[in-house]
């Protein structure tokens, strides 16, 4: 429509300027006659009579020019509009794209947040479980502390009551036995205390003092030797062995290793249990060696695990906590513990106290 109008206006201008039929017939001034204009437009003949003279022609030209200019502007504007629309469209697309990207980021963020929340929940659940386990362990230790010590006090107290009230009717050996009962009850009380101390390993501070391992081992050996009246046990304890550490905890190590040695030499005609120190690859490990039943090195991996046993309970009774306890104490001292053995040919347990130099 706009195009057609533009064409018409251009035609009008052309006709007005040059067309023979359209050329205004200007009459000579002397014969004033109304000018006539004949235009053939779209096959129709238009007839104008112009009576305004030159001014009229100028107006027509101006009008036609203005019309053309307006059309030109309209065309340009239209083009600009199209361009603007296209740009707009592009912009809108971009905005849409961006929004989509933003939504995607938002979605990803939400997913991430959910995942973080999930993980946090998992971690919280795990830590709650750990806390519950710790509480259970503490409750267990608490119960042991209360309930296992009370009967020992009874054993000790009533043994003493027997000696005090009926001592005159007991011979010396009976009294010795009762004293043995008491000393064992008291020793067990001390061991319970040490084990509780061990279970509190993360809570209590470890003492670091020079410890006379020789005298501790000798004391333990005396006790073990006394208990084995039926067969000969030879203890060979190297003199002057010391280590820097916690005396109570290191005693637990030696009690366990020497008791094990005594236990697993039970079948030997002459049991030989040795405590000493070696020089090996720049390390100076202590060792407890025996000539007992030993064990198959194939099973050595599980030796230091809690409740791990390499022998039938009917052969050699035990709880399987001893070597786990030994390992925990040694690890707390920054040392290491290992074993070498051969089935039927005895076992050697090595340990270092403190990290290798």
């Amino acid at each position: 429509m706009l195009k057609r109008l533009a064409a018409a206006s251009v035609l009008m201008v052309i006709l007005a300027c040059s067309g023979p039929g359209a050329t205004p017939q200007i009459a000579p001034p002397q014969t004033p006659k109304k000018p006539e204009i004949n235009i053939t437009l779209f096959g129709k003949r238009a007839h104008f009579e112009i009576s305004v003279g030159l001014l009229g022609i100028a107006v027509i030209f101006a009008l036609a020019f203005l019309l053309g200019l307006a059309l030109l502007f309209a065309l340009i504007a239209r083009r600009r509009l199209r361009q603007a629309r296209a740009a707009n469209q592009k912009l809108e697309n971009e905005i849409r794209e961006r929004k989509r990207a933003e939504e995607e980021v938002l979605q990803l963020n939400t997913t991430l947040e959910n995942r973080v929340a999930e993980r946090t929940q998992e971690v919280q659940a795990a830590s709650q479980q750990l806390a519950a386990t710790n509480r259970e362990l503490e409750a267990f230790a608490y119960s042991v502390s209360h309930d296992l010590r009370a009967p020992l006090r009874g054993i000790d107290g009533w043994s003493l009551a027997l000696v005090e009230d009926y001592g005159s009717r007991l011979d010396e050996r009976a009294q010795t036995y009762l004293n043995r009962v008491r000393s064992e009850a008291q020793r067990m009380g001390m061991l319970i205390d040490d084990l509780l101390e061990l279970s509190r390993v993360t809570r209590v501070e470890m003492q670091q003092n020079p410890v006379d391992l020789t005298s501790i081992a000798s004391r333990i050996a005396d006790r073990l030797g006394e208990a084995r009246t039926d067969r000969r046990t030879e203890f060979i304890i190297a003199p002057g062995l010391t280590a820097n550490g916690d005396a109570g905890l290191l005693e637990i190590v030696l009690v366990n290793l020497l008791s094990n040695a005594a236990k697993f030499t039970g079948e030997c005609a002459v049991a030989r249990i040795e405590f000493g120190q070696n020089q090996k690859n720049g390390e100076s490990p202590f060792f407890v060696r025996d000539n007992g039943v030993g064990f198959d090195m194939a099973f050595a991996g599980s030796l230091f695990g809690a409740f791990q046993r390499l022998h039938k309970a009917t052969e050699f009774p035990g709880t399987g906590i001893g070597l786990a306890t030994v390992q925990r104490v040694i690890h707390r001292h920054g040392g290491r513990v290992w074993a070498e053995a051969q089935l039927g040919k005895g076992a050697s347990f090595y340990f270092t106290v403190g990290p290798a130099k």
Partner: protein
Amino acid sequence: MNSKPILLVEDNPSDVDLTKRALESCHIANDLIVAEDGKDAVDYLWGTGAYAGRNHAELPILILLDLKIPKVPGLEVLRRIREDARTRRLPVVILTSSNEEHDIAVSYDLGVNSYIRKPVDFIQFANAIKQLGLYWLVLNEPPPQLR
């Protein structure tokens, strides 16, 4: 020596008898009231339950309190004693098997007078009882309402 009774809160009969024996061995002649659980102890002190009608103005000169006892735990018994103006000043000694740091700390927070861990060795235990008796029944000046 003050002749008011001693209240022993202890559920283990062997420990009750050993405590009696230790008290006798050091000639402490005060009556020994035994509460076998925390509720018994509370009932005795406030004249309720099994002790309904007891003149609860008569208070023990010393309370020997175990912590791990049935029904009402030892620390709760101690808390109630310290909350009531009538019983607040009673000398209370915790006499128990455990030396859990938490128990010791809470006992002192609640205002216990002393905390003794019962040794396994009876000679040490009897010695502890003897010293407790000598201190709280002879040396110590009791609060006014217990004189």
